[in-house]
């Protein structure tokens, strides 16, 4: 049970209908489906996964970085959202709930505390974040963030993003 997923559109529909105590973190349920603690969670999660396409939000000032990642990730059918500014990126994250967020630390550093906290919250809600930048700054805001130090090679970065996407979708793959 190592799968992770975050599908807040569905969560939003669910609202408070579900008991937070029995719903494990990172598992989400659909309304109208029978719920049982033994198999219910899993079923709900997987149905939820069926609704969505894997998606990545890229928040980076560099058009080139965005272009390379977009070209590489889109080949696997991943949906891509792009933002050049932190506010814009957080807005997209809230609206589309991407499976993975790629965030340039330089942008994050310039952003206000509220916006940084917003990204931090997305991470707490189990959206993996890949941070591009120097050293290990921002570890407090992003405790589980995956740091990639600049200048990086795109091969390993793309593989890292893809493996995070796989982790999110693993529950589905296990059943298939």
């Amino acid at each position, binding site marked *: 049970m190592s799968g992770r997923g975050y599908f807040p559109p569905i969560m939003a529909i669910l609202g408070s209908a579900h008991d937070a105590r029995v719903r494990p973190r990172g598992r989400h349920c659909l309304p109208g489906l029978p719920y049982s603690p033994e198999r219910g969670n899993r079923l709900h999660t997987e149905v939820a996964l069926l609704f969505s396409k894997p998606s990545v939000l890229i928040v980076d*000032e*560099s058009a*080139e*970085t965005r*272009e*390379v990642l977009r*070209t*590489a990730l889109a*080949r696997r059918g991943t949906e891509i959202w792009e933002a050049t500014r932190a506010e814009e990126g957080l807005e997209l994250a809230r609206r589309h709930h991407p499976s993975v967020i790629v965030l340039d630390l*330089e942008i994050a550093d310039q952003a206000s505390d509220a916006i940084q906290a917003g990204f931090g919250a997305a991470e707490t809600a189990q959206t993996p974040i890949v941070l591009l930048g120097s050293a290990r700054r921002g570890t407090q805001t992003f405790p589980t963030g995956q740091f990639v130090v*600049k*200048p*990086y*090679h*795109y*091969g390993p970065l*793309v593989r890292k993003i893809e493996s995070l996407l796989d982790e999110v979708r693993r529950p589905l793959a296990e059943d298939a």
Partner: protein
Amino acid sequence: MPSLFVYQGQDQGALFELEEGTLGVGRDKANHIQIHDTEVSRRHAEIRFDGVACFVADLSSSNGTYLNGERIEQQQQLSSGDRLQIGGTMLLFTDPGDNASEDLSDKIDIVHPGPVSESSRIVRAMSQREGSELLNFDFDGAASPWLARARSNLQVMYRTALAVSHTLDIDQLLNRIMQLIFEWVEADRGCIMLLDEQSKTLAPKVRRNRQGHSSAEKLAISKTILDYVVGHNEGVLTSDAREDERWDQTASIVQMGIREAICVPMQGRYDVVGVIYIDTSTTPQRVIQQRGHQNKFTDEHLKLMIAIAHQAALAVEDTRYYTSMMQAERLAAVGQTIAMLSHHIKNILQGIRGGSYLIEMGLSAHDENVVRKGWNMVERNQGKISALVMDMLTFSKEREPDPVPGDLNQIVGEVVELVHVRADELKVALQWHPAEDIPILTFDPEGIHRAVLNVSTNAVDACEEKPDGKVIISTQYYPTESLVRIVVEDNGSGIDPEDLDKIFTLFVSRKGGRGTGLGLPVSQKILKEHGGNIHVTSQLGQGSRFTIELPALVPSASIQETGAGQTLKS
């Protein structure tokens, strides 16, 4: 903001600005002021700044904390110029607020002459030069020898103060001091030794004889005397004449003569920085002639030497402090330059890696579109790195402007062509209006190309987020003013009025990751070399207008014959 400056120790040159609150001082990384010194405890001391005053307290460190040489037991207030010793590290405390806290212009008025306030008038005026003549004797010295001596001493001190007041070269400073001493006292030989900060040994810096500087004769100074002077921080007057009547005076004096010496410590604000030594000898013949010996050096000489040495020491300390301050600033500037450049190079490298990744991906997937995308990216970054190098070369003195007669419209036209690629990518409309009446002019085509390119690229970049971005580049010729203008106008993001005066500052860029902070300073440098300038008007959110002004130098017939090699400034 108050600050601590490390003037001695491993961290020499480091400047710590003290923010409000309590700041830890120690070897540990967790300290606000981390000192790399094994004699410093992990948590050694604490500095507290309450917004008004700074206090220092020792945190039961093993080696203690010293304020101006005294170990502190409890919290002490710091004042500007205080010296803090933590382990083997010396820090200087400076608080600009100490003096600047009140605006003195409120307290002191310069009253303009008016009918009411004209109650004071000038009774006597005296030139600056006459200040020193305060000390000249214009009376009968014999009537009051004490007063005469006092005046003479005061004059020596006055001259010492002048001698040490304006030099940044320690050797030169010490030479002046030595010279002054020799003018004042009848010494035969003298030398100044400075204490080496690291090895704590005395190293001779200046040596002088009555005849002049150099002499083959070796100057032997007793180590016992030197140790005494440095150790006790006291000046000494020595004589090898036997005071004791029981000795057979004549024997040794006839052989050796009498040698008298004065050796004084150079006591600065904080430490002994060195010693000054002078001596004189009386030949045996002279002793016999005089029938008994009269000392040449007196207590008075010793006192004055101590005073002179103190002045010299203060100057040595100031010079050292100033030098290390300069070095710290220079290092900081070099550090900033390296940080900026490596940042840009890193971004360019990132672009090249992106491009090659795409090419590799495209090749293995047989997708020509991806390959092309990657190739464009590599090309673009290659252009960026060459622009960066060219800007750097232009900014340093490597590249001399090379003015030749040329067609300005052609040069600007080439730039427009280059910028077009970028403008198309960003969907920015680019218009080019060359003036038709520009004659052949003398200018440095490469430099002007660079400047126009930098300004135009900025204009296009400024329009990136505008849906209907537009850049208009035009040339205008004003024969009566003998001037050409290259005007680059955009309707892009504009420049904040606050930033407007900073745009020509080196390494200041408002273009985020894309800007090097070199483009505009370099462009302005090029134009200044041409005797021209760049003017900017801008409105935030509305766009900017850059006017490049270039003196229109119509090549005379002779220049056209000889071609290049004429300087523009003539």
